[in-house]
């Protein structure tokens, strides 16, 4: 299953190929053309089979008194899914941090068993055979299994410290590409050292920026505790948000790592350590905030009434309906290009809000449906005779048949999503789109520093600014084709600088496009 050829064992040394083509085959001194290959005989395969069985036996002996495998009792699963029966183990000291090195060197069921022993302090149960099989088939990596066990309820209760596990687990999970069986981590490498250094530098910068952002958030949360309108529950929510922001940062980092791929392992570890420290800061801030929190339930209850608030907010900041529709009309040619808006290829607008876009499409006789979490918005749309449903965008998209949509659109929605939800949104959209279908996700453009540093935060429900190079990269990583940012809405102002070059640069930074749309096609 996992290899074609096994090492020669002493028992089948030179005789096993006797009769099936000798050394003359393919190795003639002057032959350049490949030689005919002798037919594979059943006898060769018998040898191969015996060898495999012997090999499995010598390398992973089915031990234990229960005779789970190798005895006369037939075993039900593949050999790797049967665990050796309990045998005396030296009692684990759960209080000392776990060194991952020796554990990672273990293989298969043995690895899983030791994960259980080290992290839970007990022998594995039935669920472990799931892990072992997943490991063998390449569905899960060792890191994912470690993380899965450590961050299970039981693992959390046991609380064994595993330095460096959490960030690495998050990195692995956030950027797992499902189609690749094994999560191998090999550098792209081809371009050599100078590029490596360049990327390392870029990473460091990203981290400094991230740290600054975290510090800013922490400070902000302190301010808010004192602020009248926020209250203490809000401060707790803010702390909570900081944790999510951290997760997003980690994922973001992971994406850069995978994309650039040119970091050495040492760099990854050092970055991971930095994250550890960062995470500790956040945890501390969260603890302090929580001490002041009145209670979490209030926040949840307030969610629905916040819907109305959000609508009011939108009214104030997103401009008049006609202006919005005028701006959105730029996407109509794109819909035409991908044949979206017919009965066979309708448009789905996630986070449809007050339905300006849906209305625009209806005016053009295009078939579209909107989905929005905010019930007030959905009512509003229905009142205008538009097709809108209340619900979670990703869930709704997930229920749409594969290959059935012409386009998935979303205006000022992705910056409200936790990072993982954004990735799921992309995945579900890719699944739901017909070939040649497109996504259009418009979002504030943090390349404009006024947007990135100030305007973005005017909307209290925004989570993370989404730089276009990041969203494009992720869309491509998830399987979209021709992903690109489409810059939108420059302010039209400019600096009156003597130095023209400087002026242009400043214009780009301050007065450049305030929004952009991530546009990408399903191949």
């Amino acid at each position, binding site marked *: 299953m996992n290899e074609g050829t096994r090492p020669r064992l002493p028992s089948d040394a030179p005789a096993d190929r006797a009769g099936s083509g000798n050394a003359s085959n393919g190795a003639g001194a002057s032959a350049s053309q490949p030689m005919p290959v002798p037919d594979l005989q059943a006898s060769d395969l018998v040898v191969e089979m015996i060898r495999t069985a012997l090999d499995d036996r010598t390398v992973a002996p089915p031990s234990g008194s229960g005779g789970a495998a190798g005895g006369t009792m037939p075993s039900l699963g593949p050999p790797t899914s049967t665990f050796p029966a309990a045998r005396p183990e030296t009692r684990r000291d759960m209080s000392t941090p776990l060194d991952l090195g020796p554990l990672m060197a273990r293989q298969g069921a043995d690895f899983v068993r030791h994960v259980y022993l080290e992290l839970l302090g007990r022998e594995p149960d039935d669920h472990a055979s799931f892990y072992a099989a997943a490991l063998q088939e390449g569905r899960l990596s060792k890191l994912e299994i470690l993380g899965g066990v450590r961050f299970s309820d039981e693992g959390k209760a046991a609380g064994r410290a595993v330095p460096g596990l959490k960030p690495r687990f998050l990195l692995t999970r956030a950027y797992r590409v499902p189609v690749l*069986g094994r999560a191998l981590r090999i550098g792209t490498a081809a371009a050599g050292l100078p590029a490596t250094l360049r990327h390392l530098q870029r990473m460091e910068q990203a981290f400094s920026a991230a740290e600054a952002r975290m510090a800013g958030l922490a400070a902000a949360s302190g301010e808010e505790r004192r602020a009248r309108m926020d209250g203490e529950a809000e401060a707790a929510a803010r702390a909570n948000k900081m944790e999510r922001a951290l997760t997003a940062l980690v994922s973001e980092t992971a994406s850069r790592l995978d994309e650039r791929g040119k970091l050495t392992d040492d760099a990854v570890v050092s970055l991971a350590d930095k994250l550890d420290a960062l995470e500790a800061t956040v945890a501390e801030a969260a603890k302090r905030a929580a001490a002041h929190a009145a209670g979490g339930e209030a926040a949840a209850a307030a969610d629905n009434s916040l819907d109305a608030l959000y609508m009011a907010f939108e009214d104030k900041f997103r401009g008049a309906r006609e202006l919005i529709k005028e701006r959105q009309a730029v996407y109509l040619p794109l819909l035409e290009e991908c044949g979206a808006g017919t009965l066979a290829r309708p448009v789905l607008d996630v986070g449809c809000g007050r339905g300006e876009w849906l209305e625009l499409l209806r005016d053009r006789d295009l*078939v579209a449906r909107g989905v929005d979490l905010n019930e007030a918005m959905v009512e509003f749309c229905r009142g205008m005779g538009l097709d809108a449903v209340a619900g979670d965008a990703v869930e709704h998209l997930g229920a749409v*048949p594969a*290959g059935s949509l012409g386009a998935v659109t979303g205006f000022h929605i992705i910056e409200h999503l936790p990072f993982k939800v954004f990735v799921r949104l992309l995945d579900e959209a890719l699944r739901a789109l017909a*070939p040649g279908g497109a996504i259009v996700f418009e979002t504030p453009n943090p390349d404009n520093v006024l947007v990135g540093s100030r305007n973005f935060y005017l909307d209290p429900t925004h989570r993370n600014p989404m730089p276009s190079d990041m969203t494009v990269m992720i869309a491509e990583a998830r399987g979209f084709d021709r992903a690109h940012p489409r810059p939108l809405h420059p302010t039209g102002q400019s600096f009156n600088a003597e130095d023209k070059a400087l002026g242009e640069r400043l214009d780009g930074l301050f007065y450049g496009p305030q929004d952009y749309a991530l546009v990408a096609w399903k191949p």
Partner: protein
Amino acid sequence: MLTAQVPFVRGGAEMLAESLAREIGRAGHQAEIISLPFRWYPPARIPEHMLACRLVDVEESNGVPIDRVIGLKFPAYLARHPNKVLWLLHQHRGAYDLWGTELGDLHKNPDGAHVRSAIQEADTRLIPEARACYTISRKVSERLRRFCDLPSTPLYHPPPGAERLSGGEYGDYFLVPSRINRAKRQHLVVEALALTRNPVRAVFMGAADDAGYTDGLKRASERDTPGGRVVWAGAVSDERRIALYADCLGVVFTPWDEDYGYVSLEAMLSSKAVVTCADSGGPLEFVEDRVNGIVCEPSPAALAEALDLLWGRRNLAREYGQAGRQRYRDMDIGWEKTLACLLG
């Protein structure tokens, strides 16, 4: 009968196997359906399934030899038997006609080409082991010839309950039978109805496989063809099904690349004209353009034109329908012939 089944999924293949078993029983033989479970993913497991089928021993049972094995589906038809006959429903389509298309998935896997090669080579080498190779339709035979360069003979069989279908009135609606999903392309019909010059009426009959698709169709028909011109009958009883066939003006069946398709046969048995598309596959083996129906381009406009034609000239609809009934008779589609081939 050797067939493969995806557990908990029942469809035409299962019904065919059961019909065949019943007919063989009526002919005075003992028949048993042996169903082997099949999972087509991950692709690396497909060769293992194939080997498992090879290792199934159906040469004798309880000391009594099994005289004949009829292989129906991949990979079950690979089992060994000295007296094996194949009646292929289809091969593993992901390795053949669906390879590289949106409907297939094998080519999207890293080992896709490898598994495809393993399937094609095994089929090409082992299908000729059988004493004879039949298929359920010309379409399936064509694919076997095209991809494996193997000869086979199409062997048509009657749709279930064929004897109970008969002609009735030529009423004021077209019948659009079959399960509702994208491959059957009912949206072509819905869009065509919005374009007809006459107030053409249609009854869609069949369960919704795909709720989203069906809802979209219903919304569009409410918007574009209001006033009860479109009726969604859903899944209906057998009696109602027969009655709807009996009294319609004609039958509309516009799938994409259907293997066989009972609908065209049922229409012909009910003496109805069949409107179908040039890329519909199976129906084209039975429907002759302007003889017993209309074969048009797969576009709403072309379809609308065909519907208008029959709606406006009801005698033509009747003429085509009766020609269809005659054609069914001429083609000698019946279990006697099928059994004679499979058991002979």
